[in-house]
C-alpha cells in the first residue's frame, strides 16, 4: 500500500489518479482544448451494471433480507432522515433540520419539502412515524431494533414535523435513524415491491439474477448522473471477475481476494480502488470460561500472534492492522496496534505468570469459508510456538449461529464482524463472547447518554482503550474494501460502510 491510503480512499496502481481528479481535469481540459470536445464527459442516461455477490433474500430490510438490500436500496431507492455518508459522517437527508431539547429527550425533526414517493404520494410526518414503528415493531428482524429502544413515542403535530420522545438520552439517534428507511405509509407487499423517496425506483427484480433500478424523474434532490442501475448477482467470485473482464458489468462492489486483482491492475482498462471497510477479523474468546477469564492469558495470546503475517497471507498487500474493535473511520479510533504487539518472549512470560508455564490446549471453532480456515491454521502454528496447543473445529455458518452466538458453547472462535460502530457490543455482558467489565459497560452507557458528540467520543475512546488493555478479544486485522471498475466508470463510493453502495453519483463516459 506504501502510504497510499489516506482519507476516504484512493485509487491504486492501475490508475494512479483519483477519479474525481480525472473528471475535474477532463472538464477543465474539455473547456480549454480545441476541437469538438463535449462539455459533459459522461453519458447522462447511461446504464450502470454493478456486479455483486450479495443478492438480497427479499426487498425489506426489516424482514431478514441480508446485507445485499443495503447495498442496492440504501439511498438509491429508499432514503432515511439521515444517511451514513461514504466518509463515515452522518448527514441529514429527509430531515431538513432538527432540534434537541435541553434534557436530550425530545428530538424535533423538520422534513424536507417537496419530497414525493415513487407512487406519487407526498412525504408527510405520518410516513416517518410509520417507518420508524415498522423497525421497532415486534415482527421486525432489523439488527438495529435494539438501538432504537430509547424511543418512547413519536408525535406528528403537522405534516412537516416529527417529534420523537425518548425514555433515555441517545446521542446516536440521528445515526441510528440512518438505518430506518422512510416508506410510504400506504405501501404494502414490501418484500417484493417498494415505495421510497430515493433517486431510483425499482424497475424489475429477477430473483437469482438481477435487480434493475431506473431514475425517478420526480426526485426532490440532485438528479443522478446516470439513467439506470442494474445490480447483477453472482454466486461465485471468479464468474463475477470474468463478467467485469468481458464488460457485462462495470463495477464489482467488493472484491474478496487480492489474487484476482492482478488481472485488473495490469490491465489499463480497469481501475482498482481501495477504501476503508468496517469488517474486522477477530479471534473471540469465551471470556466467561477458564483460562480466557484471565486477562494475562488473553494478553499473552495477543502477543504470541504476528498479525501482519496473517494479513499478508490472506490479503497480500491490502488491509490494515488494528489493535482493537474500532476501525480508523470511527471518530473514537485510537491507534492501539502497539498494545500487546507481537512479542512471543513476553507472551511466554505472561503465560507462566498466569499459571500456565507449559501452555494449555483449546479449540477454535472456525467457519468453513475463507479466510477463516487459513487464519485458524496460522494461529495454530503461532500459538504452538509459545506452548499453546490449538485444535481447529470447522463449522458452518448456521452452526456458528446456534452453537456460538446463541448457546455460547465454545472456547474461542474466529469470526469476521462487518458491523459499523460495533464497539458497543463490548458493553453487553450477554453478548456471545461474554466480556464483562463493569467500567466498559458504564462508559458505553454514558457515551450514549452524552450531551455532545465530543463527550460520546471521549467516553468511547476510554472504553476502547480498556478493551484493548484487557485484550478482550484478539483483533487480527481490518479487511480492505476494494472496488474494481471499468476505466470508463467513475464517481462510485469506495468505502464499504454498512455495505452501502450509493449509485447516484456514478458516471459513465460515452
Amino acid at each position: 500500500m506504501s502510504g497510499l491510503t489516506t482519507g476516504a480512499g484512493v485509487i491504486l496502481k492501475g490508475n494512479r489518479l483519483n477519479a474525481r481528479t480525472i473528471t475535474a481535469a477532463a472538464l477543465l481540459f474539455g473547456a480549454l482544448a480545441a476541437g469538438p470536445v463535449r462539455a459533459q464527459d459522461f453519458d447522462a442516461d447511461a446504464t450502470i451494471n454493478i456486479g455483486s455477490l450479495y443478492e438480497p433474500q427479499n426487498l425489506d430490510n426489516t424482514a431478514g433480507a441480508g446485507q445485499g438490500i443495503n447495498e442496492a436500496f440504501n439511498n438509491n431507492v429508499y432514503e432515511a432522515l439521515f444517511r451514513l455518508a461514504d466518509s463515515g459522517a452522518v448527514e441529514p437527508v429527509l430531515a431538513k433540520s432538527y432540534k434537541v431539547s435541553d434534557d436530550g429527550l425530545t428530538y424535533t425533526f423538520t422534513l424536507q419539502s417537496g419530497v414525493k414517493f415513487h407512487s406519487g404520494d407526498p412525504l408527510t410526518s405520518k410516513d416517518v412515524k410509520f417507518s420508524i414503528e415498522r423497525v421497532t415493531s415486534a415482527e421486525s428482524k432489523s439488527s438495529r431494533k435494539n438501538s432504537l429502544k430509547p424511543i418512547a413515542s413519536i408525535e406528528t403535530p403537522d405534516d412537516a414535523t416529527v417529534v420523537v420522545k425518548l425514555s433515555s438520552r441517545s446521542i446516536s439517534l440521528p445515526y441510528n435513524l440512518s438505518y430506518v428507511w422512510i416508506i410510504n405509509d400506504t405501501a404494502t407487499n414490501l418484500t417484493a415491491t417498494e415505495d421510497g423517496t430515493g433517486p431510483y425506483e425499482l424497475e424489475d427484480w429477477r430473483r437469482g439474477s438481477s435487480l434493475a433500478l431506473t431514475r425517478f424523474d420526480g426526485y426532490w434532490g440532485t438528479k443522478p448522473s446516470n439513467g439506470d442501475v442494474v445490480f447483477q448477482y453472482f454466486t461465485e467470485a471468479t464468474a463475477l471477475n470474468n463478467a467485469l473482464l468481458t464488460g457485462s458489468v462495470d463495477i464489482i462492489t467488493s472484491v474478496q481476494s487480492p489474487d484476482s486483482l492482478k488481472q485488473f491492475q495490469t490491465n489499463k482498462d480497469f481501475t482498482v480502488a481501495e477504501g476503508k471497510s468496517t469488517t474486522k477479523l477477530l479471534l473471540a474468546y469465551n471470556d466467561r470460561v477458564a483460562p480466557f477469564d484471565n486477562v494475562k492469558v488473553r494478553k499473552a495470546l495477543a502477543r504470541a500472534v504476528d498479525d501482519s503475517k496473517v494479513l499478508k497471507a490472506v490479503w497480500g498487500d491490502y488491509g490494515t492492522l488494528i489493535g482493537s474493535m474500532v476501525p480508523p473511520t470511527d471518530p473514537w479510533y485510537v491507534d492501539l496496534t502497539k498494545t500487546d504487539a507481537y512479542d512471543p518472549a513476553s507472551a511466554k512470560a505472561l503465560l507462566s505468570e498466569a499459571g500456565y508455564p507449559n501452555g494449555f490446549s483449546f479449540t477454535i471453532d472456525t467457519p468453513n469459508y475463507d479466510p477463516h480456515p487459513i487464519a485458524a491454521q496460522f494461529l495454530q502454528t503461532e500459538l504452538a510456538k509459545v506452548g499453546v496447543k490449538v485444535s481447529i473445529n470447522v463449522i458452518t455458518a448456521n452452526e456458528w449461529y446456534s452453537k456460538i452466538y446463541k448457546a455460547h458453547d465454545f472456547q474461542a472462535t474466529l469470526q469476521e464482524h462487518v458491523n459499523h460502530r460495533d464497539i458497543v457490543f463490548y458493553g453487553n455482558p450477554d453478548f456471545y463472547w461474554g466480556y464483562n467489565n463493569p467500567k466498559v459497560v458504564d462508559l458505553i452507557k454514558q457515551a450514549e447518554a452524552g450531551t455532545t458528540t465530543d463527550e460520546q467520543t471521549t467516553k468511547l475512546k476510554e472504553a476502547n482503550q480498556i478493551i484493548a488493555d484487557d485484550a478482550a478479544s484478539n483483533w487480527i486485522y481490518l479487511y480492505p474494501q476494494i472496488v474494481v471498475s471499468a476505466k470508463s466508470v467513475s464517481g462510485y463510493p469506495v468505502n464499504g460502510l454498512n455495505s452501502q453502495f450509493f449509485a447516484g453519483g456514478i458516471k459513465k463516459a460515452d
Partner: protein
Amino acid sequence: MTDMDLVNAVSEGRPRRSWTFTIGAVIVGLHLLVGLSTLFWTPYDPSAMSGGRLEVPSFEHLAGTDRLGRDLFTLIMIGSRIALTVGIGAVIIGGLIGITIGLIAAFASKTLDDMLAAGLDILIAFPTLLLAMLIVASSEGASLGTAIIAIGIANSAIVARLTRILAKRVLAMDYITASRISGTTWLGVVIIHILPNIWPTLLVNLALQFGLAVIAEASLSYLGLGAPPPNASWGRLLQEAQGTVYSAPFGAIAPGIALVSLVIGINLLADGLRDIADPTRRRRS
C-alpha cells in the same frame, strides 16, 4: 474356476499379461511409499512457514508454497498418506459391512431378501457424497475418522448388492445342493464355495471403491467436512488454492495432479486385476 486362475497367476509367478496392473501397481506403490515415508520424514515441517507467500516451484520448494508460506510438496506428500488411509479404511469398512449384508440377503427368506434389496437400492440411489455429508453432519464435528466411516458406509451398499447377486448365482449351482446333502453347514458353504468363487469379482469392485473413496474424501475435505486443518488433505489444499488460482495456479494444479494420479493408478490396478481374474479376457489376449 476363476479364483484358482488368479491364484495361479499370482503364486506361480507366471508372467502377467496385464500391463495395466503393472502400471497401476507402480503408481499406487509410489503413493504408498511416499505416504508411509511422511510418518518419519518430510522435506519441511508441514506447519512451518518456510517460504514466502505463494512462491512458484523451485528447488527449495518443489511445488511452491501456499498463502502462509508452507511448503506445498510436504503437504501433498502428507496428502498421499491421508488419501490412502481413508481409501483403505473405507474399503475395509465398506467391504466388511457390504459382504456381510450381501451374504445375509443371499441366504435370507424371500421377504427379508426383498427388504434388504430395496433398502440397498434406496441407499445406492443416494449419491455417495450426500450420504457421507449426512453422516458427517450428524456426528460431533468432522474428523478423519468420521470421513472414513461415512465413505465406508456409503460404499458398503454397492458392495452388498454385488455380493448378494454373486452369492445367489453360486447358491443356484447343483454342487451347493450336493454339498448341503453331504452335510456341509451354511457357514461351510460360504467359506468353501461362495467366497472362493466370488472374491475375484469382489476384489476388482473393492479396488474401484478404493478409487471412489479417495475422490469422496477429497470432495468432503473440499467442502470442509473432511479431516480438519492442519490435516493436509488434497481436497482442502484444492479448496485453499481456489482463491489464488490466477496468481498461483500451481497451488491448485499440484494437489490436482496428485489426486488424479492416485485415482488413475487405482483404476489401472483394478482393470489389471480384472484382466487377470476374468478368464474370457485372458483368452482374448
